[in-house]
């Protein structure tokens, strides 16, 4: 589960990571006053207005703007609240913006990258840091792997102070910056473990120019206004992702969920325990198991077709969930044919068959008629397969477009031929 930047900032602050003064607005009227409040607190006239959406590419789309007056703040807010944001990550239809973060501007002497994530290869949570912050870290990792510093977290003890010190020295922090950076790393580790994060990323982590107490920004936390002769280390932007499997024990994180950021069809599928991802093709897929679902998509493509979705009904789907799965697939009007590929293990073929029949009987077309009009190719194998096939045979009149397939290749061939 992802959260917004402003929520991430609050979370960082609550774990003692200093962030610049800022406030969130959801209407144009608040823009000017919020600008004044945030900038006067910080003793600067510079602020940044940032659209609060999960998608990346905000800067290029004009949804992150530096402003120097209440009027500029209002103009930026007006633009962001009245236009849809379109970036490589949003798709051409764009994304509506309802919340803006207005943060005090900060003088930046240097930008760093700091994150914790789970390293599959070592099976450890790992701190990743780089003195080349503010840019895409994957690019740095690819082009200059030596610029990436890693420190594994002990599974039970977390990040240790000596590790954080070592990283701070290697990043080039000096003087009083070192203890500030060390505290930020230790607190980020505590946060990561306490909240079952899958990614906790600060990018950029910055240091203000030395002796910049006049233009520097007092942190929200800890509440200290002491000058920073060596510069102050601050988290400017934060990105978090939480382990969905662990959300059950974090009600506070669950409360941060923003359903408007999710694809409605994917969200609807989740409610029924289905894993659905919309794609660009015209062949709807209903499969059990993520691996088989991917393999089914691959087979369709090898036969010259294009899958319209990835849909894994999982192992514990009910008849009702299978029925819902068909509704979700058919709600995508690009779908010209459906391929069902089930190899029952924990999933029973007869439950799938009953779900198919129910879905067909209950499905209402735009012209009011009932039943599926698109070609339906079904391949069943595995647990209770005989019962499943029998059910489908007996319901043949409800499934006029049904073709049975003997195996995976046969099914793909038939469905690709059927959609033309």
């Amino acid at each position, binding site marked *: 589960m992802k959260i917004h930047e402003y929520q991430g900032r609050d979370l960082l602050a609550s774990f003692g990571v200093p962030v610049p003064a800022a406030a969130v607005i959801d209407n144009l009227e608040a823009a000017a006053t919020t600008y004044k409040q945030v900038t006067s607190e910080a003793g600067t006239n510079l602020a940044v207005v940032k659209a609060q959406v999960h998608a990346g590419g905000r800067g290029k789309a004009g949804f992150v703007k530096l402003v120097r007056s209440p009027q500029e703040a209002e103009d930026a807010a007006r633009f962001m609240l009245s236009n849809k944001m379109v970036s490589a990550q949003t798709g051409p239809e764009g994304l509506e913006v309802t919340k803006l973060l207005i943060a005090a501007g900060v003088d930046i002497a240097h930008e760093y990258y700091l994150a914790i994530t789970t390293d599959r290869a070592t099976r450890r949570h790992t701190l990743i840091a780089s003195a080349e912050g503010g840019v895409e870290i994957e690019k740095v990792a690819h082009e200059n792997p030596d610029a990436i510093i890693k420190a594994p977290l002990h599974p039970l003890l977390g990040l240790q102070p000596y590790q954080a010190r070592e990283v701070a020295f290697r990043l080039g922090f000096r003087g009083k910056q070192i203890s500030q950076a060390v505290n930020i790393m230790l607190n980020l580790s505590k946060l990561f473990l306490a909240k079952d994060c899958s990614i906790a990323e600060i990018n950029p982590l910055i240091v203000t120019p030395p002796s910049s107490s006049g233009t520097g920004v007092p942190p929200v936390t800890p509440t200290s206004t002491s000058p920073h002769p060596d510069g102050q280390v601050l988290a400017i932007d934060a990105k978090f992702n939480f382990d969905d*499997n662990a959300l059950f024990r974090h009600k506070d994180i669950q409360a941060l969920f923003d359903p408007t950021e999710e694809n409605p069809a994917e969200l609807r599928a989740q409610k029924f325990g289905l894993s659905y991802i919309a794609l660009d093709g015209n062949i709807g897929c209903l499969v*059990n*198991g993520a*691996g*088989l679902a991917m*393999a089914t998509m691959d087979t369709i493509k090898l036969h010259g077709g294009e899958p319209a979705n*990835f849909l894994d009904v999982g*192992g514990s789907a009910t008849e009702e969930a299978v029925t819902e799965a068909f509704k979700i697939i058919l709600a995508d009007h690009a779908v010209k044919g459906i391929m069902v590929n089930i190899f029952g293990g924990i999933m029973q073929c007869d439950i799938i068959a009953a779900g198919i029949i129910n879905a067909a009987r209950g499905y209402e077309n735009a012209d009011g008629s009932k039943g599926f009009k698109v070609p339906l190719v079904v391949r069943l194998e595995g647990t209770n397969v005989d019962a499943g096939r029998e059910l489908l045979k007996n319901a043949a009149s409800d499934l006029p477009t049904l073709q049975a397939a003997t195996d995976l290749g046969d099914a793909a061939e038939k469905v690709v031929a059927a959609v033309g």
Partner: protein
Amino acid sequence: MSILVDANTKVICQGITGSFGSQHTKGCHHYGTKMVGGVTPGKGGQKDDNDLPIFDTVRQAVEATGAQATMIFVPPAFAGDAILEAMDAGVRLICCITEGVPVGDMVRVRAVLDERNFAARGADSQHARELFTLIGPNCPGIITPGPKTGEGDSARDPYTSSGCKIGIMPGYINTHISEAKSGKSVGIVSRSGTLTYEAVWQTSQLGMAQSTCVGIGGDPVRGIGHIDCIRLFEDDPETDAILMIGEIGGSDEEEAAAYIKMHVKKPVAAFIAGRTAPPGKRMGHAGAIISGGGGGKPTGTADAKIEALQDAGAEVALSPADMGKAMARALNLG
């Protein structure tokens, strides 16, 4: 012969009274697995539908039955604890079927597992095999097929003598060497559940047997991996060839390819799922994702894995419908 489990393996089920636990205890029992009991805290002293004894703790179950293996069906919030309990009671083979276990829990469990195995190896460095083997979580389990006796509820629910199925896979699709026309036995290791069944089914259809099939699960932090299984298959005298099924995401398959190139003499076939998956989208479970689709070079792609495996001399099926055929080609079966 086989790896990890055989006809003599005594098995318990943790979570035996839950709906999946009871259903699949029955399935394993019917297949011929030596199911000897189960655990549900608070229901000790009762019997399950198959007349198997239920215990309050794994320790009690092990003391009373001599169980060497367990299959875990408890809900995800309790799965980490169940694995630790099994290890503490001395159960050598732990198979966690449960899906949705928090990654943080598995990081801690895996650390304990590694520490215990390391301590055991230190005491006896000749001990090649791990003291404890964890399969999963989020996996279909492990099966060493036995010969079908003709008994059982139906052809789809056969009884086998000397078969051992631990988990949720359908038993009937498997073939014992005595039933295989080609006379060849394949060891199968897979990250994906249902795709494993597909591979088993295809090899069976083409007249091959399976020595053992291991579904290692798709979670980012788990127990046994591709390389562990490949090593065991390479050393198993009755495994003739190895079929490995991977997915996009992570670098396990690339590492396995390097291992195969260095150490494996038996024929290897492979398939990688997710060639058509778009970068940045998580496909169903936590494991399958192509990362770094932005500025950097994408990692964990199917093409990179396929290339590494081909370079290691593996026969790679490009279509999942051809996994069996690729294995047959690698074995030079007409």
